[in-house]
């Protein structure tokens, strides 16, 4: 079978392996995942870095996950010139979207995960486009429970230095693991419960409390089988109008 990139619409199904296998992996990653979450088959995408040649079928999807989700690794080497405390391991960026939450040692957003490969060498660089969407900036839309200051509709710290050239749809918020989780619902999404089809925002601390940020993974799902890994592919205005009001 020839494994190449299939540019197909957003059909999603579970990994061919059982949920059990995925849980084991996620356990190893230290991720808690609600049962029933599903992914498309990453083996059919350009994010299958384990395809050694077109005829090769990757049997174990874990072989693909390690390219982005680095396992802790068994005992490392003791450096000859330095004493290091054993076992802690090097800190990485956030590769699961849990920055700052209890148990996360990550430094750097999920956008850093993308950019660690998308640097023009093994994967397309992203800064050469005529147009690049901002990431690592606060999402200026309102969210439930937030009392707007100064009538601007957004927390003061979100508007400082940011010309409001656009209007944004309100974000949703829920509390998971004692932390706020934000997202922008896509059409058809439910209010108050995050669905896989919604656009995730990423929580950070600010003087105003926890606020939502946009990252690469707000628009792209690196596991998806959609064209260019977009979370929303069809519809007028497509993904843009999920956040932008006009």
């Amino acid at each position, binding site marked *: 079978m020839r494994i190449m990139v299939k540019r197909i619409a957003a059909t999603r199904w579970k990994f061919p392996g059982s949920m059990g296998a995925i849980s084991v992996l996620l356990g190893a990653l230290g991720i808690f995942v609600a049962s029933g979450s599903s992914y498309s088959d990453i083996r059919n995408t350009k994010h299958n870095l384990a*395809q050694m040649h077109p005829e090769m079928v990757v049997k174990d999807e874990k072989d693909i996950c390690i390219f982005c989700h680095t396992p*802790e*690794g068994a005992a490392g080497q003791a450096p000859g010139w330095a004493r290091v405390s054993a076992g802690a391991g*090097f800190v990485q960026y956030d590769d699961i979207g849990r920055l700052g939450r209890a148990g996360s040692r990550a430094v750097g957003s999920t956008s850093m995960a993308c*950019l660690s490969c998308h640097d023009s060498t093994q994967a397309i660089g992203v800064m050469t486009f005529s147009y690049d969407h901002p990431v690592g900036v606060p999402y200026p839309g309102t969210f439930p429970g937030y009392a707007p200051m100064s009538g601007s509709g957004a927390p003061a710290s979100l508007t400082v230095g940011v010309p409001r050239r656009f209007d944004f749809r309100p974000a949703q918020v829920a509390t998971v693991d004692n932390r706020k989780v934000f997202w922008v619902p896509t059409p058809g999404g439910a209010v108050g419960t995050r669905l896989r089809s919604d656009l995730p925002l990423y929580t950070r601390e600010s003087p105003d409390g926890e606020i939502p940020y946009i990252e690469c993974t707000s628009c792209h799902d690196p596991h998806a089988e959609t064209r260019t890994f977009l979370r929303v592919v069809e519809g007028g205005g497509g993904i843009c109008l999920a956040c932008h009001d006009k």
Partner: protein
Amino acid sequence: MNSIIPGTMMAGVRALAAALLAAGLAACGPTTPERAEKPAPLVFPSPPDEPRFVYERTLRSSIDVDPLSKESELRLMLTGEATTAEGLVKPYAVAVHQGKVYVSDTVDRFVKVFDFPNRKYYKIGDDDREPLAKPLGIDVDSAGNLYVADATRKYVMVYDASGKFARKIGGPKSFERLSSVTVDPEGNRLYVVDIGGVTSDQHQVQVFDAKSGNHLFNIGKRGGELGEFNLPRDLAVGKEGRLYVVDGGNFRVQVFDHDGKPIKAFGKVGKQPGQFSRPKEIATDPQGNVYVADAAFGNFQIFDPEGELLMFIGDRSEREAPAKYLLPAGIAVDEDGRVYFVDQWFRRVDVFRPAAIKENEGYLGRAIYPPEPKAEKK
């Protein structure tokens, strides 16, 4: 400006302004500020281990090499005029030759030169007929010729020691996805790494005669066995002419003899010391030790020629500071053992000096602190 991060962009400008102001204040001070209050040197590894490296300086823009431009920039800044200081936009790789530091910039499409011996900053690659399109890996031979892997044009572009375009090697028929070029010190052989890409089989090192441009032979093919590559990225020539290749998709460094015969591999996927996650560029020092940059760890690890881990330098941080990184990539070690380490995100090159030499020693040291007693020293 096609920046993905306006916020960071602005932060960069602000940092520059702050640096200029700091420089200005220091220059106005009554005493020679250099000696006055220097912060304690940052040494690696930290005590109680024996220090091997000292953080020395950071290169960001023309003002770091050209003191004249520093003054004029400051004046411009204070009079509110637009600045013309040139900085790094998205630096990728670094190469060093006798105090000249070359940095490839994938967004600005130039190789930028911090020429310390001549105290000037200039760009290579704006030749009208043969412009650089996307410079990635770079290297310099001992005569000062510069070799640039251009990923878009799929040529290795060669420039003479004065920065003039000399010739190009390879071409779209030769390479699938060019990522780096390494020249042996004598300037005889050129090792060109083709990272291939996910849907290609052409994951290999191509060896050329550096002078004639003739293709000599290839090393490796796609796969996971010894001598095979998955997304190879960079190569360094080490002890006894051995070749050290970063085999990124197999999370290891492979060692070959001078003729491309595989000897061994070290490293595997993981977060522990000696393991790799997103290994990028590789370099060797005069003793043959091997330095491997890892973008995920925000550090470089140093191995002996056999692949035994010696130490590592660097930490992840979202705040700029010496030895703090978010997206490191390029690494080079100069003739004196100074290490140059690029961060794409913070747009800078950090320089580490071996603890065994003083700051005024070596090519870079002598260029910055010329040996004759200087008149300006009061």
